């Protein structure tokens, strides 16, 4: 737990450095093309605290963020935290369901592949998982749209809900669910490939260990050896992957959201980049890092549960 504090601090420092790398001045961004007098610029700089020495700015910045204040958008003037909280739910829905489904099926596929190494099934699973792992997610999104939305017309191609009809109650939820299918599939396939690949190699590694040979010589059935002995050990690196890769999944979510016009954090991020809305951009950076740090902590706890050798005091 304590280890997370310097991490949060480090992320804040990193974003502070990033903002101060900005060539020119924020005032030019705020002013846009409007001609401002020298007094007006000085006033803006003063109101943003830019006229004070750097260390003072830094202290104010850190204190503000520690109070949960991520600043205000240059463009919409809204609180950055509010902007983020308005959208983060959509991103988490999109990220979470595929993560759970894909992890479970990935572990099963990985175990299946490892039980008969170099068999036809193993080769097929390995081939598909390395291909899935190599396909850029936004292109996978295009392919899904081309086939399942445009050709077959099974699912809507983009958006959160159908705009042409007014729906209420369960019908609305169902409609949202239908919109979720394709983006969630894109993200899920990526995760599936990753988990399968890692489960397989980590199963293969634990199947060569001495205690497995010992279990075999005891005459235990192969099923028990695979699931109770080998898998339990092999799950450790897989847990780390699933937990620690949450940031990777969020990255995938940003790209997927862009492809499917899903109204989550990705849209906010891309808009903030193009509008040069730096408070939103850095606020997002801090916020997602915070999510990742929490994800890592949860992973460590899960790890302690799975591995009896580790006990945190």
């Amino acid at each position, binding site marked *: 737990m304590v280890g997370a504090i310097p991490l949060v601090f480090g992320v804040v420092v990193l974003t502070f450095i990033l903002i101060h790398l900005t*060539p020119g001045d924020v005032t030019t961004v705020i002013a846009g093309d409007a001609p401002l007098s020298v007094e007006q610029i000085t006033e803006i700089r003063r109101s943003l605290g830019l006229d004070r020495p750097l260390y003072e700015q830094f202290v104010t910045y850190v204190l503000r963020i520690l109070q949960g204040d991520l600043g205000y958008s240059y463009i919409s003037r809204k609180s950055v935290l509010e902007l983020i909280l308005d959208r983060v739910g959509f991103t988490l829905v999109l990220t979470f369901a595929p993560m759970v489904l894909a992890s479970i099926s990935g572990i099963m596929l990985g175990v299946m592949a490892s039980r008969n190494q170099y068999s036809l099934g193993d080769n097929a699973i390995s081939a598909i998982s390395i291909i899935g792992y190599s396909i*850029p997610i936004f292109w996978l999104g295009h392919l899904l749209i081309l086939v399942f939305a445009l050709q077959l017309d099974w699912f809507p191609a983009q958006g959160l809900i159908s705009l042409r009809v007014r729906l209420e109650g369960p019908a609305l939820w169902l409609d949202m669910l239908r919109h979720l299918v394709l983006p969630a599939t894109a993200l899920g396939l990526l995760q599936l490939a990753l988990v399968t690949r890692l489960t397989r190699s980590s199963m293969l590694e634990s199947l060569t260990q001495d205690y497995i040979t010992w279990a075999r010589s005891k005459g235990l059935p192969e099923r028990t050896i695979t699931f109770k002995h080998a898998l339990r050990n092999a799950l450790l690196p897989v847990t780390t992957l699933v937990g620690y890769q949450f940031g990777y999944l969020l990255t995938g979510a940003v790209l997927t959201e862009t492809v499917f016009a899903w109204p989550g954090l990705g849209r906010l991020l891309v808009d903030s980049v193009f509008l040069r809305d730096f408070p939103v951009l850095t606020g997002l950076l801090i916020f997602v890092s915070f999510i990742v740090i929490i994800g*890592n902590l949860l992973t460590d706890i899960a790890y302690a549960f799975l591995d009896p050798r580790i006990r945190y005091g």
Partner: protein
Amino acid sequence: MKSDEASQMTGTRKSYLRIVKFWRLYRKNRAAVLGLVVVTGLSILALGAPLVTSFEPLRLVARPFQSPSSQHLMGTDHMGRDLFTDVLYGARTSLQIGFLAATTSVLIGTIVGALAGYYGSYKDEILMRITEVFQVVPRLFLALAAVAIVGPTVWNVIWVIGLTSWPTTARLVRAEFLSLRERPFVEASKGLGAGDIQVIWGEIFPNATSSIVVNSSFEVARAIVLEAGLSFLGLGDANVASWGRTLQEAQSYLQRAWWTSLFPGLFIALTVLGLNLIGDGLNDALNPRLRER
């Protein structure tokens, strides 16, 4: 003098034999050989682009939205640019950024990891804390913010990817150094009076190269994916052909012109797949622990 020459001869001979031995092992993994063929082929196509296509990249050369034909192998896009040409030149951009960015990140990661692993104690602690900070900020977010600030040129993208991607290598090299620094040959060389730098680069580093090499192949793949992601989100260099940007533009015309998305995406996937297969093959050939399975 003469014995010097002789030992040099055996030195060359030795490294020659090592390459032969390595190739024999590598060749066993057919997928890895396929990966090598794909990446070599793509590199040749990228370098020889002006010989393969008669058009220039990003030029409007024909009617828009023509489906693939003998004239325009991959069709034309919404502005009437020849897609085949843009995909070939896009390979140049991707490979250039991928290799240079990976070189940068591997270099930084190796130095950070080597120093942390060799010196240990508080130096290790500080360096690893910094590494962790870079690991918890999702790479695309960080790279996006950085490129937005410094401006999307090819060189900036290379720097940004290099400067945001080094933690993987750093952790890996640190782990290698931690285990290697306790070995007798390191003790011996220290006992003979070798300085820190000599021990780090002369003794430990050569023993860590195989993991670094394996990792580098994956790093190039990751850098290419990240670059494609950045330009897909609109933060690529607008002056060069780029697979990511072509895909971004294709998005608005999926219904009308599927080929504008299919081909550039296929090339990204092939390149990344090739590099990942090479990485797997290198791992099998260079990592003796897994070899005899």
